């Protein structure tokens, strides 16, 4: 999971699960610790030990100051825990993941195997001077939404590249992407048939 997604989940998830939890995105993103306060009624001996520290699951924290009627029972609020903001660097807007393609092939599926793997002829598009290669890909190399595109004769691009994450981590990645071409339509088939008929007629006219 990307760090940016992890950060968002941290701040948003806490607030959605428990509105009483004192945790703000602004405070978290400022880099300061967020102190969490429990209500007086839930302090000390009243608080089951098993619930200590589980601020996300328990309504332990109050943001309201005590009223005058409560003054005789008023006790200063004691921090019960501290939420440390994530160590991830703040995400700057506009800095997204990027992929530098280092090697690109165009593949054509030539054989489907019983175990779900497929064999393809690979033409090197990065250096067309290189010879074609034949290789077998496992079904795990294809994303779920592209499995239906894996047929004998279908073509795809295989990319090996360097992915730079928004936090600056660089890793080598492999991606297989099948070409999505529109299905044959009646009008396109008609055009092909006319092309074939025209070519055949021009040859026949000459023979006659």
């Amino acid at each position: 999971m990307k760090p940016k997604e992890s950060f968002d989940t941290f701040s948003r998830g806490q607030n959605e699960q428990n509105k009483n939890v004192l945790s703000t995105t602004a405070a978290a993103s400022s880099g300061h610790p967020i102190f969490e306060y429990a209500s007086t009624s839930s302090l000390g001996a009243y608080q089951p030990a098993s619930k200590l520290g589980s601020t996300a699951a328990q309504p332990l924290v109050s943001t309201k100051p005590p009223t005058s009627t409560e003054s005789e029972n008023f006790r200063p609020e004691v921090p019960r825990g501290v939420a440390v903001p994530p160590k991830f660097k703040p995400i700057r807007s506009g800095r997204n993941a990027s992929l530098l393609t280092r090697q690109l092939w165009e593949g054509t599926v030539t054989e489907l195997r019983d175990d779900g793997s497929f064999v393809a002829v690979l033409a090197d598009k990065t250096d067309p001077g290189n010879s074609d290669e034949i290789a077998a890909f496992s079904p795990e190399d294809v994303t779920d939404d592209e499995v239906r595109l894996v047929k004998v004769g279908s073509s795809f691009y295989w990319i090996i590249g360097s992915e730079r994450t928004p936090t600056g981590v660089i890793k080598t990645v492999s991606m297989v992407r099948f070409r999505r071409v529109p299905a044959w339509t009646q009008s396109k088939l008609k055009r092909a048939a006319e092309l074939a008929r025209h070519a055949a007629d021009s040859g026949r006219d000459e023979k006659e």
Partner: protein
Amino acid sequence: MSRSTPPGSDEFEISVLGPGRGECVVIHLGRNEWCVVDSFVPHGQSESAAIEYLSSFENGALHNIQLIVATHWHDDHVRGLASILRRVPTAGFACSDALSSPNFRKLVATAVTSMQGEPGAEEFANILGLIDSVSSRRSKPLASPVWAVENRQLFYTFGAGRFPVRIIALSPSDLTKRLAMEDFAQQLPKAGDSQTRLTSRNENHASVALWIEAGPLRALLGADLEHTANPRTGWKAVLTCHEGSRPDQLAAFLKVPHHGSKTAEVPEMWTTMLEANPIAVVTSFTPSGLPGKADLRRLDKRTTRLYQTTLGTGKPPSRDPSVERMMKQVVKDRQVVSGKSGHVRVRWPIGGNAMAPAIEVFNGAEKYQSARRGGN
């Protein structure tokens, strides 16, 4: 002898060229006249291997091509044929009669209009387009392809001071042709079908096997013709036809059919159509792993004069180590199609008394060294 030394006027030559995928046979018919059977485009080049070879003689051989034959339309056999026709528009062109089918024209047209394309079909579209354009200009002689069927003579030349040459198609049989035409009809896409590339390999049965007579010499070019259970199709049909037409004639040379595959193996071909211990040349088709070790051992039992245009797979290209590491993680059974075009050349002096052939190998082609003969 250097590869670029042309044959003598009275020498009959068969040259078989082939990388890891694709093959081309160049035949000297005498008097610097030539025939080209199938074609491939060498890596990094834009024209047929036949053009490169014939141009190397620097004697006008390229423009003396009399006949071009496409044994079938698969891309490993036709790439670059259009470039030869473009250079030599006076050459005749022959291909399987199965390809005269309107459905084949439609299939070619759909492949050309498809967003996926198909190199073999596109090459054929170029060939048919060239033939059509030449015939529409009435500039002769490409009025129409010569449609090859079982036992049809495709070419014949004779005359004073030269040896006669006859080229005869041995296939497809009538039934094979009909089956191929039905196959084309089935392959035609329908509305709603995905636009995939044409990769069907069924039409090998409609390949054009050739019988060549040059003076007293005979040669058999097996194309990609395969064996079938039906006696009226494939090699069985060829054997029946041969027995009826040329029962006493045996060939001294064999271009091994279908890259040495066992699907093209018919024992009777060796006993009824070939001399004992003929010269046999096998080309590669790496995508199907042909010829395999077992195929070579089987062929080696038939003749001690077996030659390969290409040995095994090619050398992996040099790439960044991190790319190589990732490749190894992702794919299995990786093979590199050799881009090196091996060349086996056989020349027979037809005019003199001695008929002993001169066999030469170039560009990595080799004679098969079997364990039986103390080789690998």
